[in-house]
């Protein structure tokens, strides 16, 4: 299909039926609305474009900056849209909690401004939160900011009332589903879609999903946070339930490994929340009534959340690495097998050994550059770890003195290298700190 602009490819996403063998519901057809297939990668492409379009058209001299409170998909879409129009984009956020998204936004040319953390020594009369100050900055005279204001902008909701909602009805042959399930972020998608669905059938049941309060699922707010959203109207939802990040990942894994849907955790939360809710209803339905239908939204794709998964469920990303590893040794083994040498003996060995030992400093390069033992080479522990995993990094004929700050890591590696067959590896007892405390010489680069 041919387009004049990538923005024309926004919307008209597929509605895919989930195999009943996967979800196990006997009387309900469950459909996934694949918003992840929008061109910029998420459900936010629609509102981002709808909110930004009038601002971009009105932007006069190209010196403006589009600005939004977002740490995820809205920022991603707005950054791309701003770039297409020769404008800059700035994302203001409490914290970017998913490192890949942060990197991606930087790749897209976004500026990221992270707000300060909560005060430790609290002044209760200071109720001007950083966001208040953000809004003040936006409304200063001469401000060159274009604020899309996704949590309050009705054009967010409209994008879904004009697009997502009607598409669902059309794909269900002109009927609204019996249930609609959405995660609540800005509340834009659920409010917009539900408005259209209820026009077709006021009986549509709506399940809104929020995150557990102390938990974090990208793109989903907690029950308290949704009350801060201007577009949030409790009347939109028949039920509000919460999901945990663990459940979100479970749902995501089902969609990925069994349904061929490369969903991220937000879509996973919607799937799991939907099935959990519908299973109870399904048990009360009989074959006598006509089949029911339910639709949930798959918000975005999995690739940006690998670190999120690794942090919470490392086992999903494979088994630990093989090879020689110093961490596999117990403290007792290290103590028994590592050869250690004190500062005085080490100095004599360095100056008069035959052959003289190679001194390996395991500290970081910045610390090494600041002060080190003359003639030593710097192989930072992370790198050394990689090297020894594959085998001995020096000849067995070359004696080696390992040094680290306090002699703990060096002892561990000395024990490991000894095990690997090296005849003369020693660890500097007490490390560089003991060396310094003995007034032995250290040099700067």
């Amino acid at each position, binding site marked *: 299909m041919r387009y004049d602009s990538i923005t024309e490819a926004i919307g008209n996403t597929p509605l895919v039926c989930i195999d009943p063998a996967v979800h196990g519901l006997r009387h309900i057809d469950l459909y996934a609305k694949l918003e992840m297939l929008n061109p910029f990668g998420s459900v936010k492409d629609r509102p981002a474009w709808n909110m930004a379009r009038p601002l971009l058209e009105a932007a006069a001299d190209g010196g403006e900056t589009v600005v939004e409170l977002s740490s995820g998909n809205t920022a991603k879409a707005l950054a791309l849209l701003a770039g297409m129009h020769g404008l800059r984009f700035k994302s203001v956020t409490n914290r970017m909690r998913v490192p890949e998204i942060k990197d991606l936004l930087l790749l897209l040319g976004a500026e990221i401004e992270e*707000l300060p953390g909560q005060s430790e020594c609290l002044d209760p009369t200071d109720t001007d*939160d950083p966001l208040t100050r953000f809004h003040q900055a936006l409304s200063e005279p001469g401000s060159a900011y274009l604020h899309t204001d996704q949590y309050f902008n009705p054009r967010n909701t409209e994008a879904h009332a004009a697009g997502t909602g009607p598409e669902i009805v059309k794909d269900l042959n002109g009927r609204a589903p019996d249930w609609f399930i959405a995660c609540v972020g800005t509340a834009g998608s659920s409010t917009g879609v539900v408005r259209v669905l209820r026009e077709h059938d006021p009986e549509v049941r709506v399940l809104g999903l929020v995150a557990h309060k102390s938990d974090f699922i990208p793109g989903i707010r907690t029950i308290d946070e949704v009350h801060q959203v201007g577009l949030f109207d409790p009347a939109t939802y028949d039920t509000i339930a919460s999901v945990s990040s663990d459940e979100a990942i479970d749902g995501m894994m089902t969609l990925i490994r069994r349904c061929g849907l490369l969903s991220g955790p937000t879509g996973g939360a919607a799937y799991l929340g939907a099935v959990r809710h519908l299973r109870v209803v399904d048990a009360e339905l009989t074959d006598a009534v006509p089949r029911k239908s339910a639709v949930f939204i798959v918000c975005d794709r999995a690739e940006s959340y690998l670190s999120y998964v690794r942090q919470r469920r490392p086992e999903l990303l494979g088994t630990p690495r093989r090879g020689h590893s110093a961490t596999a040794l117990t403290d007792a083994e290290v103590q028994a097998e590592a050869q250690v040498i004190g500062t005085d003996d080490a100095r004599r060995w360095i100056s008069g050994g035959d052959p003289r030992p190679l001194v390996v400093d395991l500290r970081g390069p910045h610390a090494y550059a600041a002060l080190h033992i003359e003639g030593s080479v710097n192989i930072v522990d992370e790198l050394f770890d990689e090297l020894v995993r594959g085998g001995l990094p020096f000849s067995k004929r070359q004696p080696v003195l390992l040094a680290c700050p306090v002699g703990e890591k060096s002892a561990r590696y000395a024990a490991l290298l000894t095990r690997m067959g090296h005849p003369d590896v020693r660890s500097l007892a007490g490390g560089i700190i003991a060396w310094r405390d003995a007034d032995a010489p250290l040099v700067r680069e």
Partner: protein
Amino acid sequence: MGVPLYLQPRLEPSLTSLLDAGVFLHSLVDALGSPLNVLLPEQIAENTERFRAVYREHHLAGRVYFAHKANRSSALVRRLAAMDSAATGVDVASLGELRHALACGLTPDRVMATGPKDPEFLWLAARVGATVNLDSRGELDQLVEIVRKYGLSRVDVLLRLSAFESAASSEGVGVRLRSRRSRFGSPAREVSDLLSAVERYRDAVELTGVAYHLDTTAPAEKVRALECCVQVMDECRARGLAPRVVDIGGGFGVGYVADAGQWERYTSALTEAVLGTRPALTWRGHGYGLRNEGGTVRGTAALYPAYRPTAGPGYLDELLSLPTPSLGRPSATLLLEHLYDLYVEPGRALADQCGLSLALVLDVRRTGEVSGSGEYLVRLGMNAGDVSLEEHGVLVDPVLLPRTAAEGSDEESPVGVHLVGNLCLEADLITRRTVFLPRLPRIGDLLAFANTAGYAMDFHAHRAQRQPVARTVAVVREGGSWRWCLDEEYWPITHPGGALS
């Protein structure tokens, strides 16, 4: 009323045991009056030891300084003075605190003078040989003048730096981590001038390190400051100075509320109350900074995060384990491999669980015009200055200590009350929050505000209306019972009451 929205305090074994000794606490208040502050000096030793354990875990050397301003009393400082002198010290922020620390038995090498200082404070610190944590360039000049004029020995100094945000050139392009502006410290980007001055003043001062203290709970901002300090230390070395210490200040936090669920339910309910979807939870619908604008909540709750899964030593451990933004090594590793020592100055976190504040219930009545209606007002023998939890945004329940055991009738059930103070002032509320108690207090009962030793005990106490300021006692557990003495009578070697321990 539904389920009472308790915010029960986090209590470790010592405070739990003290609160179980209701008869003892009642007898103290009967003798010494209400309000009454009770301190557990042994606890500060235990807390310090926990911080030391984090140091050991990361192989770091350096001192843990107690920020004296968190509590005025003698017992805590004297107990600290009796600890390992190489590992512990006191951070003083005024002439009075310096004199007090010295009088409590701290040798000057264990004393760090911080904050903005007047000439007398600077002179005494320099005279005795305390370390001076310099707040500004002007203070450096003033200190040098004093040292030269009065022929004093060289003074060990730390440079307190601030404004790391604008100094950070190391962060990724396009990322700007904001920090609140501080009134204290010298801007990090002007450090070169400051170091040049320190070099010129070598006859009067010896630079032992650099310092920061950031008022934030966010580890990312602190780690950025720490890395910046390491880079400044590098510049010092290049200039031939030999500083050894990075001082990362305090702000490690305390968990006040025991149960995460209670805290979450309470804060959700507060949001609902602000929205009007449930009855108010506060005096006159106060929202603690939250506002209702057309059905949407605006603002942020100006509340201390009273439930904290990671606080105090645990927070320090987390901070030390975090990689720094540009050098990428964990903070502790960075310090260690640069051969630097670490100083910290916890106040609140070292005073955690070190005491409680007692108040007598003077009156219980209802606000309604018709008798038997309206909200309960419980008037206490203290005012908001005597227990300033609210002043620090800390929401936590007091513990009810009945005067007489088990005379309660069956109909007694949890109740929400307003705690009001002893001043003739509408605003004198101990807390604006409706406090839920397991039963309605009776005149003569005690309310015990647990865990007030850090900033909430005497920081804001005053003599308005000639109401009494709380007396402070130190208590020590001996075998099965508690012994007490007045705070000023406490010394770490004595049993309260006399004989050497």
